[in-house]
């Protein structure tokens, strides 16, 4: 395995891992049986990792969600899809590499897959624009979703973006309009739509492919109305308060279940998805198939009505009843 990229709060594990490596090294050169010692240390390391990841703060979860080795859209597709064929272009002069799409099979079901794609390193990230799609990306996604609608392919969407791209050309080409149209048109789709926040869900850029019948979210993924950095600099007037903003904004799967926004939180391997990507893939595949099966039972009308009702219920406010009104007046 390539050298692991360690997050700040994982540092306590470094010493243990070093010891484990040293013992392995020794064992290779000698006849001494170290299996007992190794087992002990490995158990200890696993327990520590479990403890650390069990108590992650929202801002630490953001670091996990942005981990360069966290499985991406294409990683998941390669893990559990067959016959993957990527499809390109918005049919209006661009093919955004930050938002990809294509068709494939998951077991026996043909599906359309779309998702933001980040890179693993700087070079890849430049090509992928750090997973920040331009208007053309959202229009490509809609074109593909319309295709799925015509050919009755369920839609699987993977959300992993810091946000929609903010730039001169993006404004000129109508970033707001592109996202807005997706929000409206996704309500019209006659096929099941399942969205999963696999990494970070950044605001409108995430929602632009996120109007779904089921919204799944990995345990250490985050979904935010505004990046905690931006929120901190606007509301706290201090970008350094991003960790406070991250906590205040309620961005974790657990919080978003409570708020009625997320339908299911997917358990991650100890240490996060980057630690055991294949295991993460199994978890996601199981949930997708199970949800596809459930949604497959519904008629087109039921599907659309429920999607509408699901979003219709979102929001918290106070509404005095007619009875209260009379009391007051």
């Amino acid at each position, binding site marked *: 395995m390539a050298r692991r990229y360690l997050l700040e709060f994982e540092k306590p594990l470094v010493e243990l891992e070093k010891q484990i490596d040293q013992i392995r090294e020794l064992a290779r050169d000698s006849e001494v049986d170290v299996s007992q010692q190794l087992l002990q240390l490995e158990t200890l390391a696993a327990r520590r990792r479990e403890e650390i990841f069990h108590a992650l703060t929202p801002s630490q979860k953001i670091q996990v969600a942005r981990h360069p080795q966290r499985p991406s859209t294409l990683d998941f597709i390669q893990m559990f899809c067959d016959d993957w064929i990527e499809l390109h272009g918005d049919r209006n002069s661009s093919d955004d590499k930050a938002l990809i799409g294509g068709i494939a099979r998951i077991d026996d079901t043909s599906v359309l897959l779309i998702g933001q794609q980040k890179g693993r390193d700087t070079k890849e990230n430049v090509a992928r624009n750090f997973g920040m799609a331009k208007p053309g990306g959202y229009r490509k996604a809609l074109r593909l979703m319309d295709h799925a609608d015509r050919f009755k392919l369920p839609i699987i969407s993977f959300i992993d973006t810091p946000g929609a791209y903010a730039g*001169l050309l993006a*404004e*000129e080409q109508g970033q707001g309009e592109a996202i807005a149209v997706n929000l409206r048109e996704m309500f019209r789709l006659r096929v099941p739509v399942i969205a999963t926040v696999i990494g970070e869900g950044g605001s409108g850029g995430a929602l632009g492919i996120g109007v779904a019948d089921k919204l799944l979210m990995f345990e250490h993924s985050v979904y935010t109305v505004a990046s905690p950095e931006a929120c901190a600099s606007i509301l706290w007037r201090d970008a350094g308060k991003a960790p406070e903003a991250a906590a205040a904004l309620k961005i974790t799967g657990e919080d978003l279940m409570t708020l009625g926004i997320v339908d299911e939180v997917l358990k991650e391997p100890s240490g996060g998805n980057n630690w055991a990507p294949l295991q993460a893939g199994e978890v996601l595949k199981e949930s997708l198939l199970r949800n596809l099966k459930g949604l497959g039972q519904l008629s087109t009308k039921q599907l659309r009505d429920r999607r509408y009702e699901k979003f219709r219920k979102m929001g918290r406010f*106070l509404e005095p009843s007619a009875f209260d009104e009379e009391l007051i007046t």
Partner: protein
Amino acid sequence: MSLFDWFAARRKDQFVGKVIQETEEGDGLWGKCPECGQVVYRKDLSENANVCSNCGHHNRINSEERINLIADSNSFRPLDKNLSPVDPLGFKDRRAYADRLRESQASTGMKDGVITGLCNVEDIPLAIAVMDFRFMGGSMGSVVGEKITRLVEKATEKQLPLLIVCASGGARMQEGMLSLMQMAKISGALERHREAELLYMPLLTHPTTGGVTASFAMLGDLILAEPKALIGFAGRRVIEQTLREKLPENFQTAEYLLEHGFVDKIVPRTKLKSTLTKLLKLHGFNTKKRQR
């Protein structure tokens, strides 16, 4: 929000049919145009829809003044007037969200940042929502989202055309993801209004940005804008700072959007009502029932 606060807020709410004088700094008989510096008699200014008669600068007006400009007198009937915000996340930055709400409610007499209702425009029935920038920068939280959604649903049910006057800094961060989801909720309701082949026109006023731009502001059958209004998805500063791109002089103005194909027509405020009337009639919306 406690019930006591709610009562207090309600007493301050006395808006219908009453013209409230803006009590801004330097309020007097005379004022100076912030754009051209011309000294103007305030009464003349307000009679000209708060548009400078010298340079055409559109001064900001509040939701109530906007409704008075559009609706026939005494025709406006508010909906969901008492829908009030709560603090779903217990949010506190340098100040508590609950305090910010109380302050905005006290200074505007509104429960939250949008007025919705039904009215007539030259006797043509219209469903109308007007966002108010004075209320926490016109930010969209649950109440704004819910009131607009209910209005759109009402318009669909009653087969009415719809106008939403936008003025917003975007989603309200203090309600977190609930605010973001209002974008989807309203867009869903607009999909049904559209499916019913009814006319929806947003009017983009200064400023219309962020999550509002990325949802209902850009979903009009016809999109109208006020002259020089700032309209955009991302903030100018964000684009400048992070990308160091040189931005054109008229970047993110109504005129810029018109040039790039995202606005149908720029409508000076003094011609707003007559333009709306023409458009409604041209689409077959008439005084009694719609005939098409």
